[in-house]
């Protein structure tokens, strides 16, 4: 408990409090009057209103589109299911720069919807909403689908035997059991879309702005720290509220449910209704997820002089130009992997310790800590990044120019995933096994190794994979941290896109495709390691 607390205190709470303090505290003391002043501004009110309603709309839309898929993944057995589950999770870890490009290609002018239907959705709120569904589809499929697969279908069947109609049986039996998972997933989606940054920036055009975008603008562009501080606090309050509700629903979810082995609840789709449902879901996945990803892949192969590996070959030569800009893109892959490994190691240690502490102790304080660990997901990267600058500036903690800052920042985002994945499994470990081992003469370390480790090993690997993938795709915090010429993949992609010329553009697409592949492969490996009983909360 002490280690994760210290970690979060030092690398999250302290920097964030310091930068907020810099904005709100002057020589005359704290300027809380700023709140009223900033919140009264009509443009800020617009931002607040837009942030809230687009997040609500995105959440509802994501649920509508992804719930049928959660059902299909939970109940049906079909070829390629594992691959598909990995594919729908890929968007979750892709950098938004890349996704924005793909969506513009589909929904913008000359895009697919434009050519086929004459409909253009770029710079409309629809593009933002659809991209949010794209990103968060997996959250619903994994969270709700994971639980759904373990619900005993015989309960619903029993209700039908007793005379309930198909819908009534579902509404009265399955829905209440699922409700906490649905609520948890909704809140996660709401959290992610409420603090949406890149999607809104790229697809919304200049007329839409979320709180997160506004914090970035005020901090990075205008250096209006007081306004940024007020907005950060407002976002904090909102996220805190969401997390409080989330924590409650998660707790409710842990009330006893009769869970069964998911392997026993799945079957091949029967009858036309089920086949149609499966077909519908596959079509949605194809249109909504595979197609945008496909556009990027297509462009990466669309080299001059015909389709081929031209841009990929160019990636190998790019370092030859001999500039500090063109750190050979292949080196960027290596950088990314190193950073992601380091971030994963940190996230596993911190998250693992936190999860262990949360399992063993109860009470209000510990539950508050649980929520605290989630906060970094909802606090803007620029706030954390700029906070690092003004806090970690004295030896022995002058880390501002150190490589370790990048994995530290990435681990902040990875830890919540580790905690959420490990908690349910750790809570399921029977303490009596440990005691039995101790009675039989095992040292605490040995007992842990022989009892806990085998039980949590798979959860640990899943958690590692999530943390790894999140670090791999992390862009927001990384871009604000001064790096000694070691750009990560997403940073390299952004740099290439920032220059004119065909080769640069093509290489950006090729690098994005490679990033996608690395993500997909690591997620596929995870699917193989997926434990049967417990799927975690993601």
């Amino acid at each position, binding site marked *: 408990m002490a280690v994760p607390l210290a970690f979060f205190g030092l690398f999250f709470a302290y920097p964030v409090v310091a930068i907020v303090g810099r904005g709100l505290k002057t020589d005359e003391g704290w300027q809380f009057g700023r709140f009223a002043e900033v919140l009264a501004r009509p443009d800020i009110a617009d931002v607040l209103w837009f942030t809230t309603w687009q997040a609500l709309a995105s959440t509802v839309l994501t649920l509508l589109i992804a719930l049928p898929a959660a059902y299909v993944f939970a109940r049906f057995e079909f070829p390629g299911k594992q691959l598909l589950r990995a594919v729908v999770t890929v968007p979750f870890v892709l950098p938004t720069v890349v996704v924005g490009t793909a969506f513009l290609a589909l929904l913008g002018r000359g895009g697919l919807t434009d050519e086929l239907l004459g409909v253009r959705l770029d710079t409309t709120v629809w593009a933002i909403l659809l991209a949010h569904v794209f990103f968060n589809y997996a959250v619903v499929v994994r969270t709700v689908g994971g639980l759904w697969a373990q619900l005993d279908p015989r309960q619903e069947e029993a209700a039908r035997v007793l005379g309930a109609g198909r819908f009534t049986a579902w509404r009265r039996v399955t829905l209440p059991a699922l409700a906490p998972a649905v609520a948890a997933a909704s809140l996660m989606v709401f959290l992610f879309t409420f603090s949406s940054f890149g999607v809104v*920036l790229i697809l919304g055009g200049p007329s839409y702005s979320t709180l997160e975008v506004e914090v970035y603008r005020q901090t990075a562009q205008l250096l209006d720290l007081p306004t940024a501080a007020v907005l950060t606090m407002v976002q904090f309050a909102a996220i805190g509220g969401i997390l409080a509700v989330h924590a409650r629903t998660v707790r409710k979810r842990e009330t006893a449910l009769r869970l069964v082995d998911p392997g026993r609840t799945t079957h091949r789709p029967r009858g036309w209704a089920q086949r149609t449902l499966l077909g519908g879901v596959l079509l949605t996945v194809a249109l909504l997820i595979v197609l945008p990803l496909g556009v990027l892949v297509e462009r990466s192969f669309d080299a001059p002089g015909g389709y081929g590996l031209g841009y990929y070959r160019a990636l190998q030569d790019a370092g030859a130009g001999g500039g500090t800009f063109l750190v050979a893109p292949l080196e960027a892959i290596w950088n990314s992997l190193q950073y992601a490994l380091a971030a994963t190691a*940190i996230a*596993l240690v911190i998250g693992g310790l936190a999860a262990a502490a949360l399992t063993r102790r109860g009470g209000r304080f510990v539950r508050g800590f649980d929520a605290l660990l989630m906060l970094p997901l909802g606090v803007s990267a620029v706030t954390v990044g700029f906070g690092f600058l003004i806090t970690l*500036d004295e030896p022995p903690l002058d880390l501002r120019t*150190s490589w*370790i800052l990048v994995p530290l920042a990435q681990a902040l985002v990875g830890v919540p995933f580790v905690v959420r994945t490990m908690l349910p499994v750790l809570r399921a470990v029977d303490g009596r096994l440990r005691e039995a081992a101790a009675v039989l003469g095992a040292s605490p370390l040995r007992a842990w190794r022989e009892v806990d480790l085998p039980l949590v090993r798979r959860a640990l*690997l899943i958690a590692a994979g999530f943390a790894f993938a999140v670090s791999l795709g992390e862009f927001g915090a990384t871009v604000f941290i001064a790096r000694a010429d070691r750009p990560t993949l997403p940073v390299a992609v952004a740099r290439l896109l920032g*220059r004119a010329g065909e080769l640069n553009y093509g290489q950006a697409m090729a690098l994005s495709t490679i990033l996608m592949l690395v993500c997909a492969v690591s997620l596929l490996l995870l699917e193989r390691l997926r434990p049967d009983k417990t799927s975690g909360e993601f």
Partner: protein
Amino acid sequence: MSTTKKIAGAALAAALGVTTLSACGGDAKDKTAGASDAPKSTTVTLVSHDSFNVTDAVLKEFEQQSGYTVKTLKAGDAGAALNQEILTKGSPRGDVFFGVDNTLLSRALDNGIFTPYEAKGLAGVKPEYVLDKEHRVTPIDSGDICVNYDKAYFAEKKIAPPQTLDDLVKPEYKNLLVTENAATSSPGLGFLLASVGKYGEEGWKDYWSKLKANGVEVVDGWEQAYNERFSGSAGGKKAKGDRPLVVSYASSPPVEVLYGEPQPAEAPTGVSTGTCFRQIEFAGLLKGAKNEEGGKALVDFLISKKFQEDMPLQMFVNPVTKDAALPELFTKHGVVIEKPENVAPETIAKNREQWVKAWTSLVVK
């Protein structure tokens, strides 16, 4: 022990191993810096934005001649990088900051982040670029933000491409121009400032009303404008861009040639020479620099002939010194902007926020 267990163990060990290894690498570098701190530090650190670039060989030559090792830190775009310097004032991360331009210059100077230093070789810099008489900053490069046009489009339609700001509001160029958000993008801001320079502190609003009536489109950043919407760029062609006019740089056409595959004989895009705003980028010695001597040598290096002549093909900007020769790519495919629009840094600093706000409510909302 099962195989999976072994693999898991190995993976974890590998993860931790990499961490420690990289840690050693990082420490080793820092140690050399720390150990030699006492008499003369051998490392000099340059803080810059993400676009900073120099040929390795050129940098190596400086390192060999001066005896310093140069460490480069890049942190985000120009605005964010400068703001980070202002936040760390007095305890900077490096010795020299490169990348403050004339639109942000006053913010940097008012915050007092630089120590005055008159660079060796300053006499060779064109005097019109030396904006700070106290030499807190030294001009390093200049670039022009201009409207670019798609040559093929105008040839096919048999209309002359626009040349001036006045042209852009004419009916034959209706719905052709895409520009960037002046609030978040530096070419967007540059184009707004070009109109301020040309039509005055009041007249620019009237001009933008006309531009809006003539169908100007605003997107968030240069990447979207240039790579997605502009029909003349490589990315735009692939993305079926529909706007033959875009706000970009005077150096964009040479870049299109350089990164063409194969390189075209002629640039596919051109520059409307009467639509330009001149950006000048400066470097300065940071107050509180740990290695002031090294920092001074580094500033001298940035205006040396070697670096000035390397810059055009690395950062696609123009040298500021009189004797630096431009590469053939620039003389052949680039244009020299004779009369760019200009606004004094103090005027920009005073009005910037208010102009951007007025622009936003006029054009975007």
